[in-house]
């Protein structure tokens, strides 16, 4: 039986706002197994990004419980949450969000650096990954000198290089053309398959939905549907 990577129970996120508070997420309960490749779809404002932020500990729920593995995160201190993110969660953002002052290699190894991994080991892991995802030869380039697709690959490398239990990817293909999107999805599928990394996407890109193993649809902050797809070629 597979372990649970993520579990939420009756999670709400309400933003206090005049005249009426905004309920971004309304009682969402879900469970994601380790090694899964899950897409959360839905129209803008449906609560996809908020759910990812809640699961990643970037924002706190108004009520409800969230577990990463077997650890309840809703009551954790900010410091403990930061440590949890460092050790167990990788993020991929829509706008790549690489650190502009660092090279591609330095961006990718940043998490390892924070974890105190030795330089040789860091370089070995990053270069191996760069080779795997087609970033060879771009190691010393700053983000400004990379294409959107290349930047997003570096962002993926940064997210997965430290072997986190969970990758949270917020609209990772939104700024990419179809070829770059397809290449990126290939990379992520490959990592999912080879390393068993759990992926949880928020997306409204049909290509991502098409290639996900499970598709959760959110509407108005609630789960409208949760379907497992059978044609997925990724991790079993």
């Amino acid at each position, binding site marked *: 039986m597979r372990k649970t990577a993520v579990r939420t129970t009756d999670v709400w996120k309400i933003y206090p706002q005049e005249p009426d508070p905004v309920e971004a997420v309304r009682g969402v309960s879900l469970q994601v197994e380790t090694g899964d490749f899950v897409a959360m779809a839905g129209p803008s404002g449906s609560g996809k*990004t*908020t759910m990812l*932020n809640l699961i*990643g500990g*970037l*924002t706190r729920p108004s009520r409800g419980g969230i577990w990463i593995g077997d650890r309840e995160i809703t009551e954790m201190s*900010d*410091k403990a949450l*930061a*440590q949890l*993110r*460092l*050790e167990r969660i990788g*993020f991929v*953002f829509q*706008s790549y*969000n690489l*650190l*502009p*002052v*660092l090279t591609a290699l330095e961006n990718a190894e*940043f*998490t390892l*650096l*924070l974890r*105190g991994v030795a330089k040789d080991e860091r370089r070995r892991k990053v270069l191996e990954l760069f080779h795997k995802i087609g970033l060879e030869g771009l190691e010393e380039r700053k983000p400004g000198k990379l294409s959107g697709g290349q930047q997003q690959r570096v962002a993926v490398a*940064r997210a997965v290089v430290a072997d986190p239990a969970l990758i949270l990817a917020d609209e990772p293909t939104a700024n990419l053309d179809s070829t770059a999107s397809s290449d990126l999805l290939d990379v992520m599928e490959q990592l999912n398959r080879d390393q068993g990394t759990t992926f949880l996407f928020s997306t409204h890109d049909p290509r991502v939905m098409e290639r996900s193993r499970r598709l959760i649809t959110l509407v108005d902050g609630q789960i409208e549907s949760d379907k497992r797809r059978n044609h997925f070629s990724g991790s079993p």
Partner: protein
Amino acid sequence: MRLTVLLKLAMRSVGRNTRRSALTAVAIALGLALLVFSRSLAEGAYDEMIDSGVRMGSGHIAIQAPEYLATGKLEHRLEGKEVRIASKAVDDVLKESLLAWAPRLSVNGLASSTAGAVPVRIEGVDPERERIFSNIEGKLQEGRYLEAGDRLHAYIGTELAQRLDLQVGNRFVLTAQSALGDVEGQLVRVAGIFQTGIPQVDQSLIHIPIDTAREWLHTPDAASTLAFLLNQSGLTDIGVETLQQELENEPKIRVLGWRESSPELAAAIRLDSTGNYIFHSILLAIIALAILNAMMISVLGRRREFGVLRAMGLTAAETGLVVFLEGLFLTAASGVAGITAGLLFTWGFFRDGLDFSIFMEEGVEFGGSLMDPVIIPRFSVEQILISTFVIVTIGTLSSLYPALRTSKLDVAEAIKFEQ
């Protein structure tokens, strides 16, 4: 390890927007250079004022009878015994630091000629010692200064000479109350006429030989003041303290530093110094605003970046620390450049003095002393250390708020932020 990462990020960030960092650095450096320059100039000017003031006045250290400073009267004088005790004490504890010393016997009196009578301050001086001690001989306009062996000679100011219609070689009468309580006169002859540029001095000060004064006033071996000139004015306080300890069992002797014996000069320097501090504070506030502005622009434009750092596992405090370190790096680099530029500029262009004669011609009176129009800037290790401390403090304070703001950002909101 993590601190190394934060340091690297901060250093790279400073170098990232080179134009903004350079402009900020130039603003800070220029401000500091100006601060160092003006501070050096002020220190040089104060040195000049103090030197001029103590030479004209009672030296860096003065020894008097306890009541003399308040009354200025002849009855409050050091008798021969006290003069000897004080001289020995000075010889014992200040010999190494002593540049010159001079005894003076002073009395208020009247100078009369056929043209009229004028109230004056008569100082009996030892011509040979006074020549080394004071700069009054250098103010000579006509005739000569007093010499050893002179008896009935007087050295007077130009304004007094005009009012009494006196010229070199003319005779006039000094009248004052002697130690016996009688009003007694003394005929003297003008040996020389001086002009200090200080009206109060030029119209009332008269130097006569101290032996003549002692005889005339019936005060053998006495002195109103023993004035001591040190080779560094900075030694005054310690010198006064040491002498006070040495003479603590002598109730008829009081040791004074120049700030006490020349209160007008001390007050004038304090006042000018206060003005300078206000000016420097404004300058430093502008520097602080420049740093704060640069840091805030940088921070506000990089919210998403800080959000990403938080998402990747940096704590709020660590993210704030990156910004704080950026501010410190910027300040440190600019501070070193500014202080160095200030020192090099001041030393390179004005090591021989900055000539203000276009504004003040012969000099200007300041707190009862005459300031030379050529001011030689003075650097001190203390000044450089203070400047360094101040700039580090400013950098620290100016970086605190941006750092605090960064540490408090809403990560989820920051990541959405459009750069």
